[in-house]
């Protein structure tokens, strides 16, 4: 049993990929984690997706096979090299995996990256289960070399993270030895050269469109009924589940489309549906061929499909009545872990009522109540630009009221140039780098600031203080986020500074075993000393609970309840003991 992501890794290994690069991002992360366990190839965490693709390109220019992996929004970062890579082509095969996230399980938007294939004029394959994920990865490398083009392989969360049975094979013999071959007309995209490459790209698309007719991943399955369904990816599995009697044109290649195959299929069915998640990508192209279809008039444009939605669309059923009884259930959103080093910072920012420009990472959870201390979150690295823009627009008005927060991995991904801009254009911006020494949200991957590579080998570690200094920041402070009073003093001073300043909040992720070794003691609330003031509850720590109890607290004063600490969740971070004004929270004697 392999997940779609593990199957892609296996496919790349069996295809003889020599270089694999990625920046972690849900739902793509496990591909490189899995590939790093295979011998005979270089697998790396790149600082961002643009670097990942450029590194993959270099390998492919040298004649080696390269796998480059990212989540859907990562392709936005890598789009610059992608569009011109389409012109140059390559020598070794290059497969770019885009792992899309319909339903936004862990993303800031649900863009449909099939559009990139059309935009960048590159072919795209889309597997529907783990076996296809492996097989299509191998086919993608072959296609890439055959047509001298990068090939995109698109998965979605449901395909990446579902497990199904896969028959594995053995790695293929390498297709050729990587070597340096000068070919400036192909690889130097000066206008004069690039102008000559564009017609080659257009001709390649025509050839690929013809090839799509015989591509083995595009198949027709004739059913008993007169209903025809054109579909691809996970939508195929849902449709097949709920309407097994229909005829199917299953597209393994979603761009370019096999036009003759579609025409012939459409002419042999009485009613034609297109079942696809998100955009009407196939539907618009089929309509442009003059074929009448039912599609987004029946299926939602937003969110993930599921068997129920597909059945209702195909069979014209009304919405299934929900069991209404238990609707207002208490929600269980993701929360910062007990002992998370971000909690201290956000409790201070919340208390100071600052406008916090935020970024992408676990700390985005600082948005949730009771901390409620994130005011913007758009894309990787944006926090710094947001704070800069606010400073330039509001001037004195915003001074002392705004702060930018970014994680260490995100800062190294795309925050460095923004900080450079703050210095260069004289922004009165204070940036807090939440340095937890890992890429936490995606499951703790290494990055250039951790001192370890993807394979766990020791390597050099970027020094954030020296880096900020080199960019020209004059005021740099390092704080321990578990020390609330001293950290608050530093933040108060720095946000008022009419110059660029950086605060590095340094404490490893509570889940990082490598950095946290000491055995922590848990804390408890003395039921006698607790006044029921709820200050500790405002930390939003999952280990602290409110116990309702009409009674009397210390000195016989009335209280409606008291705080209590769940000892098996408590990590002993001490924040609650620091905020308690009544000394009611103490270290417990034993754990």
């Amino acid at each position, binding site marked *: *049993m392999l997940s779609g992501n593990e199957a892609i890794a296996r496919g790349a290994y069996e295809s003889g990929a020599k270089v694999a690069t990625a920046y972690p991002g849900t739902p793509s992360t496990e591909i490189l984690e899995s590939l790093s366990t295979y011998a005979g190839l270089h697998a790396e965490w790149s600082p961002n997706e643009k670097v990942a693709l450029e590194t993959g390109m270099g390998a492919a220019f040298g004649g080696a096979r390269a796998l480059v992996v990212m989540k859907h929004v990562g392709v936005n970062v890598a789009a610059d090299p992608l569009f011109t890579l389409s012109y140059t082509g390559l020598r070794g095969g290059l497969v770019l995996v885009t792992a899309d996230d319909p339903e936004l399980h862990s993303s800031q938007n649900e863009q449909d990256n099939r559009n990139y294939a059309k935009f960048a004029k590159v072919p795209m394959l889309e597997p529907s*289960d783990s076996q296809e994920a492996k097989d299509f990865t191998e086919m993608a490398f072959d296609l890439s070399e055959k047509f001298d083009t990068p090939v995109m392989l698109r998965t979605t969360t449901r395909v990446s993270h*579902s497990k199904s049975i896969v028959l594995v094979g053995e790695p293929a013999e390498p297709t050729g030895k990587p070597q340096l071959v000068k070919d400036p007309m192909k690889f130097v995209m000066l206008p004069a050269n690039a102008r000559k490459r564009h017609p080659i790209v257009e001709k390649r698309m025509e050839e690929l469109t013809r090839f799509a007719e015989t591509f083995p991943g595009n198949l027709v399955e004739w059913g008993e009924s007169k209903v025809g369904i054109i579909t691809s990816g996970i939508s195929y599995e849902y449709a097949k589940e709920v309407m097994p009697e229909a005829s199917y044109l299953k597209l393994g290649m979603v761009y370019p489309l096999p036009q003759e195959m579609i025409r012939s299929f459409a002419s042999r069915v009485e009613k034609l549906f297109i079942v696809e998640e998100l955009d009407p990508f196939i539907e618009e192209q089929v309509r442009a061929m003059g074929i009448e279809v039912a599609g987004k008039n029946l299926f939602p444009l937003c969110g993930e499909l599921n068997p129920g939605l597909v059945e209702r669309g195909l069979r014209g059923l009304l919405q299934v009545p929900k069991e209404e009884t238990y609707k207002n259930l208490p929600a*269980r959103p*993701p929360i910062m*872990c007990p002992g998370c080093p971000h909690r201290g910072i956000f409790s201070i920012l919340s208390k100071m009522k600052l406008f916090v420009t935020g970024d992408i990472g676990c700390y985005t*959870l600082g948005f949730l109540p009771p901390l409620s201390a994130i005011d913007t979150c758009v894309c990787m690295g944006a926090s710094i630009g947001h704070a800069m823009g606010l400073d330039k627009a509001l001037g004195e008005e915003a001074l002392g009221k705004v702060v930018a927060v970014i994680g260490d991995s995100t800062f190294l991904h795309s925050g460095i140039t923004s900080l450079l801009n703050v210095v260069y254009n004289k922004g009165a911006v204070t940036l807090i780098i939440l340095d937890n020494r890992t890429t936490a*949200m995606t499951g703790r991957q290494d990055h250039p600031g951790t001192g370890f590579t993807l394979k766990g080998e020791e390597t050099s570690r970027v020094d954030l203080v020296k880096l900020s200094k080199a960019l020209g920041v004059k005021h740099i402070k390092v704080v321990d986020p578990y020390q609330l009073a001293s950290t608050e003093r530093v933040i108060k001073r720095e946000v008022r500074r009419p110059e660029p300043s950086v605060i590095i909040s340094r404490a490893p992720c509570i889940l990082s075993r490598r950095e946290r070794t000491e055995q922590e003691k848990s804390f408890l609330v003395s039921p006698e000393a607790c006044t029921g003031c709820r200050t500790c509850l405002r930390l939003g720590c999952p280990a602290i609970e*409110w116990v309702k109890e009409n009674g009397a607290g210390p000195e016989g004063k009335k209280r409606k309840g008291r705080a209590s600490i769940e000892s098996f969740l408590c990590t002993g971070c001490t924040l609650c003991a620091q905020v308690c004004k009544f000394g009611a929270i103490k270290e417990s004697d034993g754990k």
Partner: protein
Amino acid sequence: MENNKVKNILLVGVGGQGIILASEIMADVFMEAGFDVKKSEVHGMAQRGGSVSTHVRFGSKVFSPLIKEGEADIFIAFEELEALRYLDYLSPQPTILLNEQRLNPPSVSLGNQAYPEKISEILSGRSKHFKSVPGRELALQAGDARAVNIVLLGALCAILSIPEKIWTENILRRFSPKVERVNLEAFRLGRST
């Protein structure tokens, strides 16, 4: 069990309860027993503490990795409140295994919302095949509170006709030999509840 009908198992609970591991062991067991299997999990961003659900489907040929609403044949709730969140998925007469454990979500911890009451009554009213399992208690009895997921696998084994040996071999394969005794005991206790 007929081989041609796909069986749907829905596991729900809270991140950190060992649900995903339980579902992975289950999927391997079904594969070894000769079935086609698909498994898919739905969970949000945080590593821990969020609502988690996992769909496991097995039979002669499985297409969708997700269970359709109204079609879960076996429902394993690791946490009581989470059980109520997924009632739309249950088939008319599902087998329900409810782990007797309450974990307060943030709004309840903060005292802003009440934890729902009478969950066990609601579920036993929903299906004749309802079983309440004191998972934490049995796991502690076996020697480790974390073995709740293995207790529940034992309870699942008791209602499926798949040889016990396939279960125990797959469980042991997942853990270090140090915890072998604890896990076998947890499985046995779950199986005999």
